[in-house]
């Protein structure tokens, strides 16, 4: 069966040698027909040592078992919202994360060699950066062509001479690896700027280890947690002044970035705050987090922004994502940025041919982990060589040029190849040629069987000042597995899948998990004062939109249910719906009669292109929730995702839904989900300022929505008013209370009392105002921002409205004048519809106004040199 001495590691688990494996099973079957160059099977189609323990257990699984578990895992991915954003995909921007259930198994010796090579490479890049941003000996002594640095847009002259925190430029380093025929790994690409993927690797691990719990445990798989613990230690240690509890933040480009999910997940896992550029400000050379409670000093920034986006003042001027003055704060030594600004300059394949030489010069070592054979075309002899065998090359840009894809020359026809040749000859230094590697294959679970697919592996390293190697490599990685027949440009964006990577060990492994942190050096206090203003803003609007959606769904459901009753109450309810939408919602002409009612309600639910419809409001719920993904529990996020899913489906079948039953069922589900959302908020959100702002949003919206509804339906008396009253009670979820109090007789005054002034009805306007008043009393003080007294003005506003309502006699409100109008009600509703938004504005302006966009002056000052200065002409 197994042949000893396969090129990889020895068997590591004596309890599970391959000899005990069943004679058949998916892995055995796979190995038997394995392609010649495979991770799992060797050239004799025997299972490699590292895989044997896993293979034995995997093959012992009941045939349907994996399929069944995999189905569960897919739900887990969906429910956790694990996703990535596909660029250029406007509609369904967020895609579920593609994960395959099969791990990629790496043996201990293989990993040890790899680890030594990766740490050396990380040290090398750090040393190159120190030289480029320092003495530039590499350029002066011609170890590196000057053009590769001086013409690289990522060489940030503004960073020259800036001492990086902790004496290091590179803190997080990722490398994309492929396996060569010899069995050794080699590097296809280096990531030195703001590498992504470690969070996805972690998420993959969490899911796959649940999917295959016994296999995971018994194969002695190295845990990932120690790596992330090291990352926390590394980041905390970068704090400019030794602090017990430095504030570390993850600076994200925001929810539209491809890997936003990962950033939010990673921030949560590391226990650091996820922030965007707009959350930070530079004051007197220090970086601060803008929170409801004022400014809080930030010590360390783990950035996921590219270099040039980090500071619109000194770097890329059109960046709206960065923090103006950040570079100066770094220069002052008041904040540490990891990776240091400017590290993108070495993230180019053009460097690869020079690394062995540079390694000798800077580290006095031989390069242990080579890159794939690479040529930089900027040297005439090299160009000639590349052109001579262009057909076998992969051409990449030497410098970042937008989103340029590698060009696989074997896929080009003669004309395209000729064109490429001309481009290379015109500007040779812009291009890099790489040898096409034949990638190894690894098993992918597809359609109930294992299929060989090409493999690319992303590995991660973090700096570790305490270790001799200088860096620590994640025992694992993000396996990227090509789709069927995919030979070129293997990436998740292009349809590849990801797989967990298991580094198996000979003996027991550490079972540390960061999910329950024992030693948490950078754990932040999440008290209210920490809440970034931008987050409070999004929570507030989440409350408002969710409540608005709830009100609309309830009105629409009642309207649909009452359609058989005739024109009323449908027409009144549509008027109320229109009022909720505020914007130009589909109009309804009462004269056209009942058949139109259903169509109009349908449009107000489904028409996602019209602002203010239910579909549009739910999209807003999703948008603001997504912007604070890291603040929401996974249960809450599940509800948000489910709401989004309902409307996505709804949009597609909207045209087909012609039955009231179908629409009612959808609305029932939406209402249940929205109730679930508010239940989760009430039950599981800690009562900090975040919850307070969310609840204020809900309260304010509920009061406003009711006022708009009453304004639209009861300000004029109606012949069939009892129908309207009944449906209003239903829509406001107050019908049972009413019936208990008044049995079945419907009076406008009694309905108004219950909906407006009854302090015990949690749906009444008075109830909402009371809650707002309580919140206002507990808002953080805004001393020193020119906003003194705002807290009390918000409280006063709510108080004034509350006392007006409390003083109101509902019988007078219900009185009808000769024109069939209710003047008192008109006045009161007008006051609410005017004053509630004013209250919201006061709140927004004083607490949430930090969302103001920073703007660039440069475009203007650039025109200052545009007058013609001439030597001998005077002014006239």
């Amino acid at each position, binding site marked *: 069966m197994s042949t000893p001495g396969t090129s990889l590691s020895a068997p590591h688990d004596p309890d599970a040698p391959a000899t005990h494996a069943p004679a058949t099973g998916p892995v055995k079957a796979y190995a038997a027909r394995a392609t010649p160059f495979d991770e799992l099977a060797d050239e004799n189609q025997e299972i490699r040592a590292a895989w044997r323990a896993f293979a034995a257990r995997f093959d012992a699984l009941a045939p349907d078992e994996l399929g069944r578990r995999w189905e569960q895992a897919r739900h887990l991915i969906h429910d956790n919202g694990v996703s990535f954003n596909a660029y250029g995909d406007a509609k369904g921007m967020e895609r579920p994360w593609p994960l395959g259930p099969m791990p990629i198994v790496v043996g201990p010796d293989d990993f040890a060699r790899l680890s030594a090579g990766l740490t050396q490479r990380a040290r090398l890049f750090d040393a190159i950066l120190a030289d480029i941003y320092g003495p530039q000996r590499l*350029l*002066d002594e*011609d170890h590196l062509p*000057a*053009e590769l640095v*001086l*013409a690289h*847009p990522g060489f940030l*002259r*503004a960073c*020259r*001479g800036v001492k990086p925190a902790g004496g290091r430029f590179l803190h997080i380093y990722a490398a994309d690896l492929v396996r060569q025929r010899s069995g050794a790994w080699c590097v296809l690409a280096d990531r030195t700027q703001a590498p992504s993927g470690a969070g996805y690797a972690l998420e993959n691990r969490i899911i796959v280890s649940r999917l295959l719990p016994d296999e995971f445990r018994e194969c002695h798989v190295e845990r990932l947690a120690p790596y992330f613990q090291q990352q926390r230690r590394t980041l905390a240690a970068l704090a400019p002044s030794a602090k017990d509890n430095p504030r570390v933040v993850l600076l994200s480009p925001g929810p539209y970035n491809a890997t936003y999910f990962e950033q939010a997940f990673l921030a949560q896992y590391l226990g650091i705050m996820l922030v965007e550029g707009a959350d930070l*400000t*530079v*004051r*007197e*050379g220090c970086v601060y987090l803008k929170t409801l409670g004022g400014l809080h000093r930030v010590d360390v920034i783990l950035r996921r922004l590219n270099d040039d986006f980090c500071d*619109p*003042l*000194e770097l890329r*001027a059109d960046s709206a994502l960065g923090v*103006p*003055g950040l570079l*100066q704060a770094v*220069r*002052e030594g008041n904040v540490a940025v990891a990776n240091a600004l400017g590290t993108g300059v070495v993230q180019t394949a053009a460097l690869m041919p020079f690394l062995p030489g540079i390694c000798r010069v800077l580290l006095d070592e031989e390069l242990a982990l080579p890159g794939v054979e690479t040529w930089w075309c900027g040297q005439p002899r090299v160009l000639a060589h590349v052109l001579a065998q262009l057909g076998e090359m992969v051409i990449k840009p030497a410098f970042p040029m937008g989103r340029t894809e590698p060009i696989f020359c074997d896929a080009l026809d003669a004309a395209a190849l000729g064109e490429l040749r001309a481009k290379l000859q*015109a*500007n040779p230094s812009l291009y890099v040629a790489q040898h096409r590697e034949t990638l190894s294959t690894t098993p992918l679970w597809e359609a109930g069987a294992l299929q060989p697919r090409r493999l690319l592996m992303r590995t991660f390293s973090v700096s570790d000042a305490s270790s001799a190697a200088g860096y620590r490599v994640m025992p694992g990685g993000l396996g990227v597995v090509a789709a069927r027949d995919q030979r070129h440009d293997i990436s998740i964006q292009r349809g590849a899948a990801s797989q967990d990577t298991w580094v198996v060990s000979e003996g027991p492994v550490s079972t540390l998990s960061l999910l329950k942190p024992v030693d948490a050096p950078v754990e932040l206090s999440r008290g209210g004062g920490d809440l970034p203003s931008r987050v409070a803003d999004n929570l507030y609007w989440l409350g408002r939109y969710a409540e608005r959606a709830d009100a609309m769904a309830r009105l629409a459901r009642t309207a649909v249910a009452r359609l058989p009753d005739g024109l009323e109450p449908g027409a009144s309810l549509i008027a109320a719906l229109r009022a909720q939408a505020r914007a130009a919602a589909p109009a309804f002409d009462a004269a056209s009669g009942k058949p139109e009612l259903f169509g109009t309600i349908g449009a107000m639910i489904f028409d996602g292109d019209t602002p203010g419809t239910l579909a549009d409001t739910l999209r807003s719920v999703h948008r603001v929730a997504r912007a604070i993904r890291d603040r929401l529990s996974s249960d809450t996020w599940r509800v948000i995702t489910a709401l989004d899913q309902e409307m996505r489906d709804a949009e597609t079948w909207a045209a087909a839904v012609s039955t009231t039953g179908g629409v009612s069922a959808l609305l029932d589900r939406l209402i249940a989900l929205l109730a679930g959302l508010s239940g989760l908020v009430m039950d599981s959100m800690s009562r900090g300022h975040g919850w307070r702002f969310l609840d204020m949003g809900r309260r304010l919206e509920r009061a406003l929505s009711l006022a708009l509804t009453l304004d639209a339906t009861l300000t004029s008396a109606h012949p069939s008013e009892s129908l309207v009253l009944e449906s209003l009670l239903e829509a406001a979820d107050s019908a049972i209370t009413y019936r208990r109090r008044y049995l079945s007789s419907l009076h406008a005054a009694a309905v108004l009392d219950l909906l407006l002034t009854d302090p015990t009805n949690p749906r009444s306007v008075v109830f909402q105002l009371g809650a707002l008043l309580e919140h206002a009393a507990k808002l953080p003080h805004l001393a020193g921002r*020119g906003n003194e007294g705002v807290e009390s003005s918000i409280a006063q506003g709510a108080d004034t409205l509350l006392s007006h309502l409390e003083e109101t006699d509902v019988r007078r409100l219900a009185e009808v004048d000769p024109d069939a109008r209710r003047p008192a009600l008109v006045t009161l509703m007008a006051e609410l519809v005017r004053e509630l938004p004013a209250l919201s504005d006061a709140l927004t302006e004083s607490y949430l106004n930090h969302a*103001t*966009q*920073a*703007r*660039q*002056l*440069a*475009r*203007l*000052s*650039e*025109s*200052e*040199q*545009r*007058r*013609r*200065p*001439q*030597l*001998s*002409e*005077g*002014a006239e």
Partner: protein
Amino acid sequence: MIHHVVHVTEYLYSERVSTSHHNLHLLPRATSEQSCVHEELEISPPPAMRRERVDDFGNRCTYVEIHEPHNNLRVTSRADVEVAPRAPLPATSAPWEAVRDAVRAGATAETRAARHYVFTSPHVPTSTLAREYALSSFTAGRGIIEAARALTTRINKDFVYDSRATTIATPVDEVMRLRRGVCQDFAHVQIACLRALGLPARYVSGYLVTRPPPGKPRLVGADASHAWLSVFAPSHGWIPLDPTNDIVPGEQHITVAWGRDYSDVTPVRGVIMGGGRHDLWVSVDVSPGEANKSEASPGEAQTQAQFQSSDTSETPP
């Protein structure tokens, strides 16, 4: 000759600016022909923080933070700069191909330092048009200085000074086609031409002293910011050339800063929070340093200043 320079930049915002960060390249640097006798930078409202540093090109650079709410920002730089006359251009110089090869080889500290200015930069990308245009001045074996000077003259003759034709965002190739532009464009064009041939060239930002017509009084605020370039000629150093006026800069040109192109030496760069619309006033006044110490009062300068509003900034008057 000593010049007294007063350069006022004023932003008027339609809405309050709550906080702003600026990076200024306004204090003149010292050069082999020029020294600063006295200089000051006055900023209103007063900055919460201000830091002077020397950037990677050796320019003086000022970082400023303002956290006081304001509707108008005024930056006034005053400097007394002594400029020595420049020796006439040498009659002969190395063939331009030899300069190109020497820079490529980078065998000396001087040529290695010049390499910082030979590659593409944000405003000066690789340009085939520029290369073709330049080649008729750069005939085989021609001396670098002679050829570059001839190119300056050609650009001056072939290009029309037109402040409406371009904006700062107009690419060099577009300027090459239009054959129109302002001093920035003229400088960028010649830099593109020189770099296309593998010759280092740098962008110089500064001021030009203007002389009134004979018998007329000198008017305050009529002077201007200016831009030219210099080309690298080993053993002669950097030779300045002004294609806008077809001259070799001398005592009338006051250097503030240099870099690869305009983006390295933008006089006033800033990011503001708030502000709404903004209008910009710029006034430059250069007067003889010894004779007339009385400087322009701010009000006076303003009346003469150019006016640009944010709506028209892309197509200046």
